[in-house]
């Protein structure tokens, strides 16, 4: 499925189940997402992380609603499954789509200005370098006997200085490779939204509506 439409569908459903209260629909969404992910052959480690880490917030919400909520244990279970529904719905997107394809389709099919699509993509591609840079900032501060934590203004200050410098360099590099803002582009890789994509979006979204309408528990 087209990455842009897939993200749209995932966000629409996630937004909707934030307001609806159906335990069974939440479980169905988790199950369908899980099957979809398994069909794409993800690693056992990734699957374990998907199940394990959300357990903390889900359990936390469950216990607190159970002890102090006025809506009973059924509502506590809804919150518990809601967290997992978000995570598994999100995973159907993040584990099977690339951020590059997303940027390409947003630019080509959703009319996002190219400077946003490629600018943000360029920044996201620097993610490993940014992780490195944070380590460098912290280490060089340590060498001067200062420990920087997530509450230290200096850490963010230096991060912003690097950002200012890098953004200038990246923008200039892109311009010198022929990138011109707000000008029509030709594309090496063309991503289209097919009729099938639209049909899937409409059918799946309608199916969720029908389930939410008929399954009230």
């Amino acid at each position, binding site marked *: 499925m087209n990455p842009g439409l897939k993200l749209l569908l*995932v*966000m629409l459903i*996630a*937004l909707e189940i*934030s307001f609806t209260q159906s335990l069974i629909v939440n479980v169905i969404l988790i199950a369908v997402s899980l099957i979809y992910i398994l069909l794409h052959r993800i690693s056992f480690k*990734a699957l374990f992380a998907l199940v394990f880490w*959300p357990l*903390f*917030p889900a*359990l*936390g*919400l469950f*216990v*607190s*609603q*159970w*002890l*102090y*909520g*006025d*809506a009973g244990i059924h*509502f506590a279970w809804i919150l518990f499954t809601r967290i997992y529904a*978000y*995570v*598994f*719905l*999100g*995973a159907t997107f*993040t584990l099977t789509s690339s951020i590059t394809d997303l940027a390409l389709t947003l630019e080509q099919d959703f009319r996002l200005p190219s*400077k*946003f699509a*490629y*600018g*943000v993509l*360029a*920044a*996201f591609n620097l*993610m490993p370098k*940014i992780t490195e840079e*944070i380590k460098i900032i912290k280490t060089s501060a340590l060498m001067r006997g200062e420990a920087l934590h*997530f509450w230290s*203004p200096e*850490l*963010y*200050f230096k*991060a*912003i*200085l*690097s*950002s*200012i*410098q*890098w*953004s*200038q360099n990246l*923008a200039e590099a*892109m*311009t010198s490779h022929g*990138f011109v*803002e707000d000008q029509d582009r030709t594309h090496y890789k063309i991503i289209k939204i097919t009729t099938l994509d639209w049909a899937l979006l409409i059918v799946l979204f309608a199916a969720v509506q029908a389930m939410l309408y008929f399954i009230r528990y």
Partner: protein
Amino acid sequence: MDNKVENHQQHQRQSAWNLRNIILIALIAIFCGIIFWGAGFLYTALTVALTPIGMAPAANDLLMGLWTMAGPLAGFVIRTYGSAFLGEFLGAAVEVFLGGQWGAGAFISGLVQGFGSELGFALTGYKHYDWIGLNASIFTTVVITFAWDIYKNGYGHFALPMIIGLFVIRYISTFVFGGLLTKAIVKLLNRSNAYNL
């Protein structure tokens, strides 16, 4: 003549939303996203500690300020409409791609938090890049995100004192991280003349 005026306006609009500034906002958001991701163990530890007494939602509120810091920071560095929203939203998107524990929920939280951040700057007409504007942004962030959690995390089903308690915790957290810490960072930036680089 008319055409010229329009061109001029368009030029002014482009001057803020150019390629460099878009990359800059994205980079600031990613830096913040990665720093918070590193502090993710804190959230898990707090949740584990608070779950037995049923106060796990408080962990969410305690760290809210940290999660909503990218918005005001981006809003202060690139002083134009939309920058706080984009910064906050991208900051949340980073968490999704790093494999945070929220999944698609982080995208939606990012939209809500970004809207909250932006609203404060919008209400002050994008003119108050000072303590007033920052506090307006904090106020709208807290109110909007809390309203959202009343539905999403079921806060509406708690007793009133607990709801007020959670609100106060969230306000303090957002004030400390989004307010005091952001103010300290902006002060360092001002002293270094970094905006003119």
